[in-house]
């Protein structure tokens, strides 16, 4: 477990902080010597965090206000990466397995590609108790993103596949150039009438299956301080009452779907 000693005065590239890297270390001393880019300098992990060994073999837990730490959980492949606090941009970038759980809010480009890569998140489950910034789920290929709070502009832009749930408000340009994939929102977002279809009411047993899976996981696997209720409630409404389904983005020949629960 890593506890932030104090907030850094420059942005930190935390992409080197992975479960794989820590698992490869023999002891806490070696962990402390992992280096992170801090502005134009390198700093050792031990300078920024208190390192406490843990018996949980496939879990990394980090605590603190990590808003200046970017790329946390980037390319995460397996096991559980648990963050108690807010995080910066590009959290979970290009993750391809395992679970990334964030108890606070995240910045922009959640699970999005890095640099010039064209594909975003490829698998796994990413859970955010708070809100997220712009471009969350950009170019997502597979996996699940669940956001208890709100999302900024360009949510699910260029989405290829996968499932994103947002229990809070969704801002502008959501689903921009989405090709496939499923976005579940609590309220209907503002969408272009030429790029997206009119809503169609429907109900499918698939969402009961999904709701059971997510709520069972949330009840048994989600640790403190995560609550998970809003996402589970959104899914339960969609499963039990049905939903409005909006398809698009027709500008790219997309067959993505944006679902909003029917309110009774």
């Amino acid at each position: 477990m890593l506890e932030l000693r104090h907030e850094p005065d420059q942005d930190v590239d935390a992409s080197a902080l992975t479960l794989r890297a820590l698992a490869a270390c023999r002891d806490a001393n070696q962990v402390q010597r992992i280096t992170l880019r801090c502005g134009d300098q390198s700093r050792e992990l031990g300078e920024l965090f208190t390192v406490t060994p843990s018996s949980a073999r496939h879990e990394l837990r980090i605590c603190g206000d990590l808003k200046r730490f970017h790329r946390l959980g980037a390319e995460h492949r397996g096991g559980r990466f648990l963050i108690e606090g807010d995080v910066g941009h590009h959290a979970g970038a290009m993750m391809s397995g395992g679970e990334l759980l964030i108890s606070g809010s995240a910045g922009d480009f959640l699970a999005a590609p890095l640099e010039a890569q064209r594909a975003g998140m490829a698998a796994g489950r990413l859970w955010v108790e708070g809100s997220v910034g712009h471009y969350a789920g950009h170019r997502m290929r597979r996996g699940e993103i669940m956001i208890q709070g709100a999302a900024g502009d360009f949510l699910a832009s260029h989405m290829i596949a996968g499932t994103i749930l947002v229990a809070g408000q969704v801002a502008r340009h959501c689903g921009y150039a989405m090709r496939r994939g499923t976005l579940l929102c609590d309220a209907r977002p503002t969408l272009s009438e030429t790029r997206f279809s009119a809503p169609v009411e429907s109900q499918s047993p698939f969402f009961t299956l999904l709701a059971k899976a997510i709520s069972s996981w949330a009840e048994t696997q989600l640790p403190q301080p995560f609550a998970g209720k809003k996402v589970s409630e959104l899914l339960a409404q969609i499963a039990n009452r049905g939903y409005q389904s909006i398809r698009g983005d027709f500008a790219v020949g997309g067959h993505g779907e944006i679902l909003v629960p029917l309110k009774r």
Partner: protein
Amino acid sequence: MDEPFQINGVRIEATFAEAFDMKATRLIVTAADRQWVAAAAAAMTGFGTSVIGCGIEIAVERELGTAETPDGRPGVAILAFAVSGKEMEKQIVGRAGQCILTCPTTAMYAGIEASDAKSDKRIPLGKSLRYFGDGHQISKVVQGHRYWRIPVMDGEFVCAHEVPRIEGVGGGNFIMLGKSRQAVSTACRAAVDAIRPLHGCITPFPGGATRSGSKVGSKYPALPASTNDAFCPTLRTSVASSALAADEAVAMEIVIDGLSDDAIATAMRVGIKAACHADTGGGLLRITAGNYGGKLGRHHFHLAEILK
């Protein structure tokens, strides 16, 4: 050596049933209500009594409550058995497409958990049926399992991508002999009713029983099997090998397919005891079992061992 014995006055032969390795699978079918479930299940399991002529032996294993199905709707579990994996795949895909996909409000799921993710023993379900969606189908992965959502006229047909195929056992059996059709029918029905609630097995013949028990071979080269003349009452004086006693006028056979030897042994025990205690007015006289001398099938169910 087993000795014959009696249960409630019914003689139990010192013999064994001989059963065979088969390929097996379990499917779960759900629908909006029990009526649609029943319609889909009846279609899916129709013409599925024997691999000899139907290619598959398939029947409802049990009804499932809403708490037992993946989507929380009423459903049934269906067991299927075939001689080969290729035939199993052909039958299941064809039946799923023509009998489940077609039936209003249904969905279809795997009823067997995959024990080995890298095994190639899978039967395609949605993997084959998805093309009916003509490009509008949606694939979703939940907890590592892929599902297809195929647009149809009542909404969506939800279907698991595939279902695992496992090893099963087919041909567990016991033959009931008695004085009259009525007596043996009563015994049959009691046996089938007792077997019905058991998990892991089916009795695929009509009403769970057959009167056309067969033997291997025929005087006609094209036929793989023919009537079991040893138990045909009208041939008792014509064939040298009649197995009927003087007071036995009717025989009926219950065939059981199961996912394990234990499942079949349990079903045979429960069924035989229920038959022996049925109200046949003394009309049920003897219970025996069919085998090929132990030379064809490697699963042997000795009546004495099962019933002790």
